[in-house]
């Protein structure tokens, strides 16, 4: 990891911390949500952006974290932090099981298998409505949304915790991709056969990447549940798997900063466009087409291509 890498990423973290003190109330709330969702996108980026595993089922990991927290808090009155750790465990375990099965396939087949697993997970949530309350979802009780004296429903506390989680995920992602293990993941993405010929255990590395990716996604899902007080099946639906793909593609697949930029860009694009016209999805669609045409590597990917060749 170079000094330049550290400076640029710590600069973003410092900037987000500074924004806590100056953002108006509405944007303060938006940024808190963006940071949590960016953690989800960071998790997805490790599988897709760095390892080349095109998953269409990552919402199941986000949902595993979310329901891990939700069921622990709602049914067993487990406080926020242990509940979040349970959510993390649920995501890791699910990623391990899904990885062991789905990684027997690759390419388009992997995409379809992950999509099917995610759909099965979504239907499981609906099926066990006695515990999950089906598609209505669960509202986390207020007293379960606290870590010690920190009330997570408080705007300031929520922002700072979202910032802390995002900072950890971002630096972890940066460390990972600069670590020899991360470079092997990139090698797998570029040419798996060659990596295998060089003696790497490609299956094991891909499984590890998927478990790390799923665990980070679950961390985001669990944090979302406890910070915003709601657990719903729609977060485990196919739409949220596609969101992760979209955010990463827009921001720049295989870049550490790309997921955050993608989430931020999409959030504000929809927000601003919806203030201009009711047909805001059309505006969003046109902007996405233009971005795909003129910045096919995403926003940060394009910056790397043009100005900053060694941007991680």
């Amino acid at each position, binding site marked *: 990891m170079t000094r330049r890498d550290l400076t640029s990423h710590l600069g973003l973290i410092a900037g987000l911390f500074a924004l806590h003190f100056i953002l108006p109330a509405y944007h303060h709330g938006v940024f808190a949500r963006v940071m949590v969702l960016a953690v989800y996108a960071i998790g997805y980026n490790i599988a897709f952006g760095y390892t080349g595993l095109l998953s269409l089922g990552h919402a199941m990991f986000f949902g595993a974290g979310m329901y891990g927290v939700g069921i622990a808090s709602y049914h067993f009155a487990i406080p926020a932090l242990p509940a979040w750790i349970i959510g993390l465990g649920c995501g890791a375990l699910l990623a391990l099981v899904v990885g062991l099965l789905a990684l027997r396939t690759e390419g388009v087949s992997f995409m379809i298998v992950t999509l099917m697993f995610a759909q099965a997970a979504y239907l499981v949530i609906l099926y066990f409505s006695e515990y999950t309350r089906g*598609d209505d979802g669960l509202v986390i009780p207020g007293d379960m949304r606290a870590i010690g004296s920190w009330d997570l429903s408080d705007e300031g506390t929520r922002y700072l915790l979202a910032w802390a989680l995002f900072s950890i995920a971002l630096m972890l992602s940066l460390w990972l991709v600069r670590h020899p293990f991360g470079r092997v993941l990139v090698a797998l993405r570029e040419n798996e056969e060659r990596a295998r010929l060089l003696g790497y255990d490609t299956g094991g590395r891909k499984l590890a990447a998927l478990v790390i990716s799923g665990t980070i996604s679950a961390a985001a899902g669990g944090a979302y549940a406890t910070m*915003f007080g709601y657990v719903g099946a729609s977060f485990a639906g196919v739409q949220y798997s596609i969101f992760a793909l979209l955010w990463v593609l827009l921001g720049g697949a295989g870049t550490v900063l790309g997921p955050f930029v993608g989430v931020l860009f999409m959030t504000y694009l929809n927000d601003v466009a919806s203030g201009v016209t009711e047909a805001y999805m059309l505006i969003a669609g046109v902007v996405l087409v233009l971005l795909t045409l003129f910045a096919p590597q995403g926003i940060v990917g394009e910056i790397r291509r043009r100005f900053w060749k060694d941007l991680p």
Partner: protein
Amino acid sequence: MTETTSKTKTSGLIQPTRRGALKTLAMGAGAAATMPLWARYTSAQSAEPIRIGFGKHATGIGAAYGRWYERTSVAAIEKINGEGGINGRPVELVTEDDGTDPRRAAEVLEKFANQSSCDVAFGTLFSHVVVGAAPRAGELKLPYFVCSEGHHVASGMLNRWTMQPGITDVKSQISAMAPFITDVLGKKVTMIYPDYAFGYDHRDNLAPAIEAAGGEIVGSIAIPPTETSFTKYFPQIPRDTEVIYHVMIGPAVLTFVKEMGEFFGPSRPEIFGFIDSLEATDLTSPGLEFLDGTYFWEGMPRYLQDDAPDYVTAYRDAVGLDANGASVSDPSDVSTSAHMFSCWETLHVIKAGMEAAGYQSTEDRQALIEAVEAMTLMEAGPAHPGGTKMFNGKTHQVFGPQYISKVEGGKLVVQKTVDYEETMYPDEVDYTSMSF
């Protein structure tokens, strides 16, 4: 100083010129001409409009409802403003698309509270969207008036800032229908419902209601929400079924009805459904002929009934409904009549609550909630065209009349109206004991 200036100063006195005097007169005349519009608001301490945030299901699965919820809300706001606004202030509707998505709906509430300076939020229909957004309303301390008919408000799972004063909930609707089903249609009931939350509300509440009314559930068939063909489910209907109770919704409902017609042919059992299945759908659509002679629940009649009182016709005219419950400008654009009246009534409850609380600014939001909690009887009339209702301040839920209609010649004709007294059930929560 030239002759063209409108006034000249001499010895400290203002000397009006002829042109200046004419200008002043013209401005005065213009202002006088518009006086009826603004004079109504002059008693207000602030002339700023009261801003009501409307979370519209403009996209996503609720879009058909969102379109009509907005039309009804706009019509209600026009009426309220025409009558002098609220506390002498004009009312403004601030509409945001929530995408029928819980995450977006929570963001929309944040936007209403922190960016658009809305006084209250209202209008959400789909229950998962309400449940997802309500915690944020509580955190933002933003009064959130929902029009959802879900049991989530009265069940106690939400918070003190969320209320449902304009539409009854599923539990009371079902309990009102059960005696009619068992007394008139038959005692042995098979229910067919979508295999997710909306269906579960019916599944969980129908069985005890039917049993209490002297009937029994002989079959219960859950159909996955992704299903597109239903023929394999119909053989599961027990032979001794006297009544089929169905609450299928979504784009496949036309196929469901058509295939049910093909399965039974002319010798069908009695059929009772919730109009939710066919909101925004023309009952004369091909394939729906099979529904002739079947019964539906309605929250408010879609078709103009012969005995409709004046305030109902006034409401329909204001919203732009023809006698068939479709848009007067496009007869193929069928409304969501059984639900959308709740927007009209909710906005009138907000008005009444703000007037009772002496609402002046967002500082008075808590007083508004307390004022609405204190409400009880809501008499049928221009503010409540859906009929006389009873609001329960403890559960934040209104109880009102339920309409049972029969399809006759492709139109719904009301057969029976169940008054609110027969739809009430014991309280499951007391929100007034919760802190703000």
